[in-house]
Each structure stands twice: as C-alpha cells, then as structure tokens.
C-alpha cells in the first residue's frame, strides 16, 4: 500500500507540477500512514530521478522507454506499477498530457477517477475539492472506494524543493508494442511572430467581455494611449480576432509585466496561470465576483464600454 505519483516532463525537463505532485502525495501518504512512491516514465529517467529525490519520497521508479510522452506507453507503465505496488491513490497531473492518459489508466484499472482536484484529504476515504461552473463554485466530492485515481491541478500545492534520499529503482517494463497505436512526430512553437508580449512592460489585455470583433478598436485605442502592448485571453484568439502570439495563459504565453490591465477578462484559472506574476494587476469587469478581482491590486466594477473610452480620454 502506498501513494503513487506520476511525474510530468516534456522535452528534457520535469514540469513544475511534478514537484507539486510530490507535496500532494506526501500529504496523502502521511494521512494514510503509507509510503510515497514516484514514477517517471520515458526520457532521461536517471537525471529525472535525481531531480525527484525529494523530501518525503520513499522510492522513485524509473521506466526507461522512449524519449517523449506517449500515452500508450504511459498507460502500460502505470498499469504495471499499479499491479506491483497496489497504491491506494494514483496521483497524476491535470496537465494536457495528464488528460491524455490518466482517464485511460483509471478506466483500465477499474479505479474511480477524480480529475482537476484543488485540495485532497484522506479520512476513511478520499475527499477532493473541485471547482465547477467555470470556477464560480467549489464542490466537495467523496469517493467510496478503497483505491482511487486523481489528477491534480497545477499551481495548487506548493512545490517540494527540499531534497531527500529515496531509493531509486529501475522498473522493468515490457511494452506491448501492438498497444502503441499513436506516434509523436514532432513539436511546433506556435506563439512566435513579430510581437513578444512577454517582453512588454505594460500590457492591456482583452477578453470575452469585448463581445464583438469590431469593439476591439476601443481597447487598441487605450493600449495606444498608454503606450502599452495589446494581449488577450483565449476566447479572443480562438475567434481569430488576434493572433496566437497575443494569447496570455496556460496554452499561450506566461507574462510578468509591470502593469497588467485586464479588460473584460473573468480570470479563469488557465488565464491566471499566465499572468499572476505581474507586478500590478488591474481589472475592469462587470461581474464583482469575477475571479480576476481575487488577484487584482486595483479594480473597477463597471461596463468596459463606458470605462475604457473614459480612461483613454485621460491619456489623450
């Protein structure tokens, strides 16, 4: 019995969530009185194992097979580790790659799955906290099962940085190649181009609240008046109103300007992940409960169609 956490890496680097998974895993392992095992699959596993030799980890299992993430390999690796360790909880990241293998692992092992957990507790069974309705509410979810699979949201647990001295064990996996029916053929940087929003000192960022493409002009005029660079949240880029290199957030750029002015952006977790490091955050939004106000330093609760032109006027 143990807690098993599966690390996340891409193109040679462990991703931040791996260190957060160790924290979440250690907390659960302590509550359960069990060991914490960490697995790392594919890539330079020996080097990853060193990085994962962290406080509270009892054993790191390395699965040396291939370079990059392949969900067919991950599923087989976690299945095999599960049958060797019979962990009480299998912890996986709620990253894009986590979304690509965790549900298959859970289904294949017959474990109930709780995804995108933001807090976890073990008391006679797993209780997870999850958000719903686009982060407007939190829910408590209880799982009535002896063993469970969980994916955890990035940025919710403090990363474990203190080193430890776990055992490192090479896990011998025989991959059934007939079950590998997908192939990664390459990677592409899609946010390039003439503008690098991560270089800007002042960003005026526009979101869904702008409603129509022709209204973008209002925000462009403000950015011009302020000498700021224009950026956007995901829906604006999805609609094709601005190019991908203007997108702030998890799947776009991470920005840390001196001033970030969010116009009509509600502040979904994926967006906040890309801008929470800004020095000063200012939000203009009609919804006083919008999560953007939770991280803002200054705010105006009001209609951007009134406030933005008035603000532009102040700098003319």
């Amino acid at each position: 019995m143990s807690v098993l956490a599966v690390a996340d890496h891409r193109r040679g680097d462990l991703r931040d969530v791996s260190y957060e998974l160790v924290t979440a895993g250690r907390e659960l392992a302590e509550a359960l009185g069990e060991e914490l095992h960490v697995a790392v699959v594919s890539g330079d596993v020996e080097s990853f194992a060193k990085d994962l030799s962290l406080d509270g980890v009892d054993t790191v299992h390395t699965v040396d097979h291939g370079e990059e993430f392949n969900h067919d390999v991950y599923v087989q690796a976690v299945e095999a580790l599960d049958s060797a360790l019979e962990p009480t909880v299998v912890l996986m990241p709620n990253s894009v790659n986590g979304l690509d293998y965790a549900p298959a692992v859970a289904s294949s092992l017959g474990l109930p799955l709780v995804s995108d957990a933001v807090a976890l507790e073990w008391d006679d069974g797993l209780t997870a906290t999850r958000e719903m309705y686009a982060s407007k509410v939190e829910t408590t979810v209880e799982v009535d099962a002896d063993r469970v699979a969980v994916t955890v949201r990035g940025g919710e647990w403090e990363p474990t940085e203190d080193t430890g001295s776990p055992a490192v064990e090479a896990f011998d996996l025989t991959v059934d190649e007939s079950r590998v029916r997908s192939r990664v053929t390459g990677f592409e940087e899609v946010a390039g181009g003439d503008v690098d929003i991560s270089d800007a000192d002042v960003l005026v960022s526009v979101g869904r609240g702008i409603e129509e493409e022709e209204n973008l002009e209002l925000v462009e005029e403000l950015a011009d008046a302020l000498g700021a660079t224009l950026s956007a949240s995901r829906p604006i880029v999805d609609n094709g109103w601005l190019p991908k290199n203007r997108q702030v957030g998890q799947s776009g750029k991470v920005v840390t300007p001196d001033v970030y002015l969010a116009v009509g952006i509600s502040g979904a977790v994926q967006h906040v992940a890309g801008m929470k490091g800004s020095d000063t955050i200012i939000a203009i939004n009609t919804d006083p409960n919008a999560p953007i106000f939770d991280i803002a330093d200054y705010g105006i609760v009001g209609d951007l169609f009134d406030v933005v032109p008035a603000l532009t006027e102040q700098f003319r």
Partner: protein
Amino acid sequence: MKVLVTVKEVAEAADDFEIDGLDIAPEYLEYDLNEWDEYAVEAAVQLGEDGHADEVVSVTIGPERTEETIRMALAKGVDRAIRVWDDDIGGAGLLDVETKAELLEAVVAEEDPDLVLTGVQANDDGFGATGVTLAERIGFEWAAVVNDLELEDAVAKVHRELEGGVEEHTEVDLPAVLTIQTGINEPRYASLRGIRQAQSKEIAHQTLADLGLDASTVESPIGMTAMYEPETESDATIFEGDAEETAVKLASVLREKGVGAE
C-alpha cells in the same frame, strides 16, 4: 466512414446566483451547448463536407429539455441524433466519468463509428475525461486536446495543444476518439434552411433498457457532498463612482506607475 460526435447541454451560472443544496438554484442557470462541443460538431460536419464521413451522428446524455440544444447541432449539418436518458439516469449524479463512458459505449456498439469526436471538457463539471475513458473502454486509439485534424488513409494526423504555446504533432491509428479543443475551427451559425431541415431529422430516444443496460450502470462510487461559493481573497482597491470618476482615479494610479508618460 461514420463519425459519432458527443454533445452535452451545459448550464451556465449568472453573475449573481444562489446555491440550493448541491447545485446552483435553477433560476440562475442558463442552458446551452457546451462550448467545446460546438467545435467538435463543426469538425465532424466538416469531415462530412470534405467527403471523409458518409454520416455524422451525434449522441447526448440528457433529459427531454436538451433536444432543443441537440436540434442546433442537427441544424448545423449533423445527420441524426441519439438522446440517452431515463429516470434512473436522471436520479444519478453522473459525476462518474466511467458511468457516462459506459452509456456512450453502448451507443458505440450500436452505431459502429470509425471516429468519435468529443469536446475536451464540459463547461459545468469540467472533468475533461469522458473521451479518453470511452476510448479505453471501446478499444479505440485516442488523442486528447486536439486543435488540428487531418485524416489520411487509416490515420488521423493531429496537433495536440500543449501548455506554453507548443503543439505536439501526433499520428493516431483509426478507429479513434479525439477530444477537440476550442479554436480548432470556426463553428458556423445554423442557416435558416438548416434550422428548417433539422425539424425533420431524427432524435432517437434510448433508455438504459434500450441499450441493454440496467440501473446498476449508473451506480457510482463518486458523489458530491457539498457545493459552496469560494471565499474571495480579494484585497483589491476597488474604485467607486461612475465611468468618468473611476477612470480619473485609475489614470492617477497608472501615472504614478509611469504608464502613459511620453
């Protein structure tokens, strides 16, 4: 080939709302087609127009009310629809991804599609796991978070949208389940002609019994025990007043920070 696209009607909460028990009170909820599914439907319809798909069928799990939403998918070019529901399903929480996947699995067994498209996640519960769980259950290959799709012989060439502006290029053997990310295409508006035609398209209602399942299918080890509004941690300075007044106050803060100086 036949394409099956899963769709879900989701509820969106108003800015101000109240919670009643384990859900937002119904008067604060508005129903619409899940945003991700709009893109999945468009991708499926385009496969029909490109000559890849002979038939595009959509499936939903939902009460009779959802037929209005499903009709919109039909108006955009989906050929016919299946709606799975009965009282036992209505009485279950349906938080358990495995339950939903088991219902969809039964539909897949009847329809025998070559490709299944789903949205990456639903805007209400946000589990983001139904598509990949379904793939595992039905023995299809899969790819999650797809934002570009091309079919070539028996392979789907896809881009997966990773974090940080990076896309992964992946080849996926068919038959497959692909979970579709927003932005992959531009979902069309239904034409008046499409809306008229949709009135005569079939929405077949299937119960657990029709699918060869029983009430045990919807028994789940996962249950919600509380819903609440998160405590706001905001310590933002909120400027009060009309647009003009708040703009003046904000402008002075911005100038202090050196913004807008020539």
